[in-house]
Every structure is written in C-alpha cells, then in structure tokens.
C-alpha cells in the first residue's frame, strides 16, 4: 500500500527549507519576546490576585475604582469566561481582604469572591530560577541518555551528534511556545504562570520521545541498509518509515488535548493550549528539525575528515 509510495518520497531533499520554515515561525515570537517580554503572572512577579464572579456583565473600570479608593495599586483587571474577572494588584495584606470584599459588594451586590492569593516576590524569583535549573538539567540528562543509548551507532557516525540534534529540536519547541505566549501575552493578556513551565517541560519530554523514535530507526537502518547509502538516504528512508507512526501518535495526543481544551475547565485552558501547540511543534521538529540537523552535521563532519 502506501509503504511503496512512501519510499518514493525524498523528504530530506528540502532539508534546508524545513529549517527556514521553523525560523520563519520562531522569529516573530523572538521579536515579541525581546520587545514586549512575557506577561508574567504573580507566580513570578509577586503580588495579589482576587477573582470574582458577577451575576451579569460589569464595567471593569468600576471594579478597578474600588481598589484605587483603598489606595491599592491595580496592575490589571482581566475578564475571564462567564462573568468572572480577576484583579491583579501589588501585594495586599491578607488582613485587608475583608475590607476589600465589603467594598466590592457595596458596588456590586451580586458578586462573589472566588479566590484571593498573595505571593511574596521572593518566591517568584526562586520559581523562575528553579524552572531554569530544571530545564538545564533536563537538557543535560537527555543528552547524556541519548549519547549512552546510541553508543553503538556504527562509525563514523557519533552518538553525541544524535543527542545534540535531539536537543536542538527540543529547544526549537521551547522557542515556539515561549514566542507564542509572548505574542498572546501582548495581544490577549495571556499570562505565563507555573503551569506554563509544566507545559513547556512536558512538551520538551514529548519532543525528545518523538525524536528518539525516529533516531532509533536511523540507527537500526544504519546497520541494516547497504553501505553505499549515505546518511541522507538512510535518514530519508527511516523518516518515511516512521512517518505514519509519528502522525498516529501525535493524533491520539491531539485528540485528548483538544477534548480537554474544548470541554475542560477554564483554569487549565491556556495550559492545554500550550501543550497542544507544543505537541504539534514537537512532531514537526522531530522529523523536520532533528533529522535535517543530524544529516547536515554528519555530512559536514564526514567532509572535514576527508
């Protein structure tokens, strides 16, 4: 069936273009990141968040005024789904919450405070630090593991290059996600919180998971296919073979995540969106970033050794 035709496709012929496409997708995000930065939630900046539910739509300015009258600096009043609003402020003493609640009910009799949280800024700095530490260790751990698991690839290919290529693809996905949220943060007021870090790290895990399957096949074929085939042919062959699996697996994950996005609770919507985008990017990057980078690098190394 399609196994016949898939061997006809020369996927690696356009390898440079895949990388160009990635660059085109990533660049706007990087620009947004540099110009606007990320819209950090209290998890990072420290401060207080009050969430309210109202019976009908309100004018957010009225809500803001309640806070201003009590000389509390409001950073944003963000509408959520339904008639819910969250108010982000500079840190507020918990003792003052009752006073604030009363102030809000005076203006909006049919309101309900859903939650109130205060995070000290000191924990914010540390959350960021611990996330970066986790990310760095994940990169090191994955590189070491791949270098170890692929230690038997035939010469002159090197398991180290497999590891680095996988990590390059993974960082691609991280950039796609962070860039997207920089853009969303500016235009849609979407915040980056602790859950976003979870999503990024998950996507990185998935991306490597996906890349390893492709690389595993390349390794297997390097030992099996005739020696006249160079790394590009072998990679092409292997990518074609694993393509339907990559698509099938990503589809199953995309099904579950789409269901969660459409039907799941509000609180995890952005988290699920981040995962959804990341999984799609991760699938793309395993085939169209990791493999081309590996091919280009191995070819370059072979040329240099001649």
């Amino acid at each position: 069936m399609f196994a016949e035709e898939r061997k006809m496709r020369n996927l690696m012929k356009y390898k440079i273009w895949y990388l160009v496409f990635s660059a085109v997708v990533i660049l706007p995000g990087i620009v947004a990141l540099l110009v606007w930065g990320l819209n950090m939630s209290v998890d990072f900046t420290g401060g207080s968040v009050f969430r309210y539910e109202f019976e009908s739509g309100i004018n957010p300015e009225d809500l803001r005024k309640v806070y201003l009258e009590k000389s509390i600096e409001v950073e944003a009043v963000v509408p959520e789904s339904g008639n819910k609003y969250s108010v982000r402020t500079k840190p507020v003493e918990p003792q003052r919450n009752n006073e604030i609640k009363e102030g809000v009910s005076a203006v909006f009799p049919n309101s309900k405070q859903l939650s109130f949280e205060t995070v000290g800024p000191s924990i914010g700095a540390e959350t960021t630090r611990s996330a970066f530490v986790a990310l760095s260790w994940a990169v090191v751990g994955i590189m070491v593991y791949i270098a170890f698991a692929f230690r038997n690839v035939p010469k002159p290919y090197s398991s180290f290059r497999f590891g680095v290529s996988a990590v390059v693809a993974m960082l691609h996905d991280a950039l796609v996600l962070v860039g997207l949220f920089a853009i969303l943060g500016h235009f849609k007021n979407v915040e980056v919180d602790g859950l976003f870090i979870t999503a990024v790290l998950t996507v990185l895990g998935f991306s490597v998971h996906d890349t390893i399957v492709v690389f595993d096949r390349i390794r297997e074929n390097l030992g099996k296919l005739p020696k006249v085939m160079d790394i590009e042919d072998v990679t092409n062959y292997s990518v074609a073979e694993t393509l339907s699996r990559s698509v099938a697996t990503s589809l199953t994950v995309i099904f579950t995540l789409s269901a969660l996005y459409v039907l799941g609770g509000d609180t995890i919507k952005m988290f699920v969106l981040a995962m959804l985008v990341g999984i799609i990017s991760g699938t793309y990057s395993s085939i169209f970033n990791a493999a081309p980078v590996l091919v280009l690098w191995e070819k370059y190394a072979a040329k240099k050794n001649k």
Partner: protein
Amino acid sequence: MFKNIYVRLGLISALTTLALLIVLPRTPIKMNNSFIGLDATIGGYNLELFGGKFKKDLRDFKKGLDLKGGIRIVLEADVSKIDAAERDNALESAKDVISKRVDLLGVTEPYVATTKSGDQHRILVEIPGLDNVTEAVNLIGQTAQLTFKQLKPENEWSEDKMFEYYTTPDSWENTGITGADLKGADVVVADQADIQNQGKPQIKLRFSNEGREKFSELAKKNVNKPIALYLDETGVPLSMPVVSADLAQGLTDDPVISGDFTFETAKSLSIQIRAGALPVPVKVLEQETIGATLGAESVQKSFFAAGVGLLLVVLFLIFRYGRLGILAGIALFIYSVLTLAIFKLFPVVLTLPGIAGFILSIGMATDANVLVFERVKEEIFWGKPKNLAIHLGFDRAWNSIKDSNVSSLITSFILFQFGSGPVKGFALTLAIGIVVSLFSSIFVVRTFIEFANVRGGKKNA
C-alpha cells in the same frame, strides 16, 4: 511461569479486579480465612489488613487544594541561628509543632510538609475546606516556645485531679524556665540503677548550665508534684511528669522523663520538646485562599473531557488497526483502572496538573501500541506471516519504546526533583503513568493478542 498464557491472563484479571475494587469501593467485602491468616475488609471505604495493622482509607481520591478549595500557607523558617547540622532536625520539629496547631483547627486531611531548596527552609501547610486565611495564619504562624510550668499555689495536687489539671491551662503558672534554657532532649534507655523503669525508653532533658540551676530549684520546690511542659500555651501540655522524691536535694545528673513510653512515643515527645528547645522563628511567605467552586467545576469538566478524549483515542485505534485496536482499547481501560488504583493507594494528591499528567501518560501508553502495530504492519508488508509479524513487531519496537519512555521518565524525575508544588504533582502522575503504561501496552496487549491467536488457531484447525 509467565510463558504460560493462562497464568498471564489470570494475573492480569486478578490485578484488574483488585484495582477495580480499590477504585470503586461501594459495598464492604469481608474476607476471613484463618488458614492463611487473612482477615481483611475491602471496600466500604476502608481497607484493613493483618488485623488492623495495615489500614488505608479508600473513601475518596486525595484531592489537592485546587480541586477542593481551602487555604495554602508557605512559612519560611529562619534557621540562620542554628548549627548547620541541627537545621534539618529543627525544621522537622517545627513541622511537628505546626501540625499540632493545624490539628487544633479541627479540619480533615491537612497537609503539612517541609521543603528545602538551596538554603531556604520552608514549611508548606495546606488546609482543605477552610477559608479564613487570617485566622489560620495567626494560629500557626507563631514561633514555637516551650515553657515549664508549675501548679498555682491554690491548686492542691492529687492523682484524682490529674485530668482536670491536664486539660486546664489556667491551673498552671510560669516558672521562668523556657525552651531557651534547654539544649536538647534525647531518647535514652533507663539503666540498671533505675529498677522500676529498667530497659524502657526515657527522655533525657539537657539543660544549659543556667537552666540546670533553675530547674534544680524548681524540682526541689515541687517534689511529688507535677511540672507541665507547655508548647504554645494552648491546649494540653506536651508532658506532665511528676517530680520524683530523689530530686529533693536537687539535680545530680540530667533529669529524665520516664513513663510508659514506646520508642515511637518517646521519640515523638523528644522531637516536640526539641522544637521548643530550638525555637525556629517562622514568617509567612505566601498565602492563598482557593474557592472550592473554582475546583469543583473545573474538575468535573476536565474528567468529562478526559473521558471523551479517551473514547476518541479508542475509536481512532479501532479505525486504524481494526481488531488490534479493540485489544488496545481494552488494555487502555485496564491501564486507567490500574493507574487510578495506584493514585488512591499511594495516595497521590490529585491536582489539575496532576490530572493533565495522567492524560498525557495515556498518550504515551497509546504511543507504545502504535509503535508496535505500525511495526507489525511493516513486517506484514515485508512478507512475514501474520503471527511472526506480531512477534517481530513487539520485539523490534521495544528499542524505540524503551528509549523514548526512559527519556520521559528522566524528564519527570528532573521535574519532580527541581519543580515545586503543581509541577511536582504533574511529574509524579506522569511517572506513575509511564511505568503502568509499559506494563499495559506491552505485557497486557501482547497477552491478549497471543490469546486471540491461540483461540483463532484452534478454530482454524
């Protein structure tokens, strides 16, 4: 033993049944067999094994604050004045004290834990079902302080009144001796000189020189009367030892508290005394109130969504792989039940990110099946007979499955190690999910397929 397909099928059914019982405990089942020493009640919301020695509350999943609502307080302990070697102990003691205070709130399932990151020593308090954060902070956010008290002069001591004095903080007065006078408290075993308590655990109080003087005076005045050790001046004293007659001349050695202790209770008391002996100032770093409505709605929706997602996955598998897909669907069901059972047994505190981790692990479980089935398709394409193709499919896909899952496990371990709060919950459910998924997608699916082939083969013959 696992070569025999019926043994494997039996093992799978037994595990699944057990997991189902744990996940859906509706009616209690009493199991009693004196021959193998089994006396257990399963279901009915409580699991009791070995005559009550092993107990597990299986009423419900342990839900995190985001699902149940409540308050969360992070306390920072200032350990700068404490020897580096003693810091962990001090933090542990402070946690003990705070647990005691939280218990005073009379709430169910509070969660108190210590966390350390770098040189920051923290205590995390989560109290589900409470919404007055100010009251909670006032109650638990104070520094632990141990005080030694004696009975007020108007209160006569007699054994009959023990309970009354024990429960009435007002019957006591301060003596000026506090935790600051104490260097530590250790569990020791009574030596031979102490005939009455020989071999039993005791708690030895180690005073500073000045503290020893003061305590010596106090003991002389209170021979045959009790001294109360209060932590926090609230509730009941930690301990209320009666000064023995041989202390009438003052201290000759470090004083000991003896009584009907087991090593466990003695250790716990010494920890609590030490908590007062090493006052750890704490300050509130972070506090949140989380509305329960927020959780309930989200959870219901997310569980429903997860169900729909799972159904879609199964339909997709059947559409793409036919009969193999049905088997994978059944295995996916077994996988879900097993994982949920582990969540309940452990117990894993379920949070929204935790549920997300569980859902992602479903994806990874499916991936293992997809890898195998695609490989089987390929082998068939290359002209292998079907049975051999299935066999080869499992063998040859194993490398990819192993490498990809190990890398995911590495990621989840790193997340668990370095992440905080919700990230940790996510990593834990993901890791459990990956391990169970390997079992279900390899062992279970393979057994099913082989079983189907054995039966199919008989029919054809």
